[in-house]
């Protein structure tokens, strides 16, 4: 019988606190956008009418985006690390699945911006020798990320060669 193949989603979700983190960053963006427009409309003597229109649109879109986006992203961003590979899934309109063999990993970085620190989150970036881009897992619980990075580094060090 012929079969069809498809990729299964990676096993783990990121930390639930990531929802809050994404909301905060999106909110910052909206505040800047709406704030800028409001200030201009209020202070300018003859603000163009289209600016009032975009301001209204922004005010309608912002709460929608703030409610839907983080939830949606939480459902989409998934990751998994097995003994052989790192596997991630991301993207909404353009979906992407990345698989990097652990034997070819060159560096494992942990990054935390201030908001991530506030939410006790961390972002792991795993690079290989290719220019195709690193494998990133964002929104991980910080302790979990540390353990994962330590494990990955250990496995990578066991490998030989320059991973190219």
């Amino acid at each position, binding site marked *: 019988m012929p079969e069809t193949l498809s*990729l299964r989603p990676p096993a783990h979700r990121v930390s639930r606190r990531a929802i809050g983190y994404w909301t905060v960053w999106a909110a910052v963006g909206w505040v800047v956008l709406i704030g800028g427009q409001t200030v201009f409309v209020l202070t300018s003597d003859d603000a163009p009418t289209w600016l009032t229109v975009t301001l209204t649109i922004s005010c309608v879109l912002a709460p929608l985006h703030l409610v839907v986006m983080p939830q949606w992203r939480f459902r989409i961003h998934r990751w998994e690390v097995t003994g052989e590979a790192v596997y991630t899934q991301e993207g909404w309109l353009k979906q992407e699945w990345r698989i990097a063999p652990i034997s070819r990993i060159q560096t494992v970085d942990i990054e935390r911006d201030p908001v991530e620190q506030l939410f006790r989150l961390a972002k792991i970036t795993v690079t290989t020798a290719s220019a195709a881009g690193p494998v990133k897992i964002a929104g991980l619980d910080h302790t979990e990320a540390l353990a994962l990075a330590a494990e990955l580094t250990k496995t990578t060090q066991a490998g030989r060669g320059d991973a190219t």
Partner: protein
Amino acid sequence: MSVETPAVTPELDHWHRLDRRMLLIRPVLDLVKSLPVLVGTVILGRGNDWEWFGLGITALTVLIGVSHVLTSRYRIADGQVEWTTGLLLRKHRAIPLDRIRTVDVTSEPKHRLFSLSAVRIGTGRHSSAQGANKDQLVLDAVSQTEAHRLRTVLLHRKEVVTESAPPPEQVVAEVDRKWLRYAPFTLSGLAVVGAVFAAVWHFAHQLNIDPETVGPLRDLMDDLANTAVWLIVVIAAVALLVVVSLLSVGGYVLSFWNFRLTRETEGTLHVRRGLITTRSVSIEEERLRGVEVKEPLPLRIAGGARLTAIAGGLREGKGGDKGGGLLLPPAPVGRVHEVAAEVLRENVDPATVPLARHPRRALARRLTRAVNGVLILAAALFGLAWIDFLPSWMWQAALVMVPLAALVGWDRYRNLGHAIVGRYLVSRSGSLARATVAIRREGLIGIVVSRSFFQRRAGLITVTAPIAAGKGAYQVVDVGEADGLAMAEQAAPGLLTPFLVRTPQR
């Protein structure tokens, strides 16, 4: 990362200096380079303080050049190449020998005057974050015997035993005079014409010369005004074609004169070429990850192609690395496949096998993408014409291009294909610049599967094969989901398997 030990640590080397004969050339070149400054300040700014400023800058340039030649030293010791330079600002750089991927020897006219060469030692790292030149070392004046010694020591990690006996090598390919007929189809002359035109335009603009005021040009314009438009267009097209063809042939001769691709016993491919500027590139076969057959549309129509190596340490199109991976200049496509097979040590070039076609749904995507681009351009031009910024014939011309774009889209679909042949993953795509890549599967460092919104609706995916060589990643575009995943699973055995689900087809 793992701790690596170099295979052979050459004995301690003493410090070498750059060839002193460069002292005769470098100041002259620096003077020539600062000629605009000199002319500007000494002649045009005669009598004011700027004069001394210009002279000072020129003197400084020459001094820096001289001190670079005098103070640069290098040695190969402790498993690394060390290099220091500078008088006031001292620089020191060390590159471990086992990081060296390529040794590129170039002799420009300035070098050839005294049989010198510039040796570019590359590590082939893809990160540009630390600056493009941090990972390579350029020794820009060494004698040709020294260049040969460096190449042997650095790439084969062994000392040259005797200078008199060059290592035996086997010729893989040599340029054929008959291949010159492919030169016009490369359209390389077009770039020259464009550059010259831009330069002339720029100068005329800078010097405030109005084309209308130049006698011969004005006469020409007057003559043209009395001639039929179609005749002007035909004559201009023919003239352009002739000039571009001649320039292309000239470019071919300049770049590929004495082209020789050889294989040395130590397992290196060695490319030598060039008429005035000679270039010699060595590619470690161990680092060879595959080959790319490039067939730009005009060349494809003429039955020609080019061959490029995909190897670790050879980056594509970045400054000094440009053209580094070339394995065969434009040549008959049959010969290209022969050389590809020979280079890869296979019986047949994997790129010649029949490729699996992509599903019909991919055609719609290629067509819409090709046509939409032109339509958006036409819309933009229409918008600009509407506000009286551009004449309206431009958007009409863009609309005429639509059928052509559709044709290109159809050809793109026709060219899409992929296959797994033995050790290789083969992928073909493109129309105006068709390229067929064959990469060794063991070189894959992962798999990336992506699917855009429109691809999802059509049940297509794009599989990207990341690799530490060439462009860094090669794609199989718009392949059916099940086919693509099966191909990816086969390409990187075991890597994908745990993440796949098989459902019986109903």
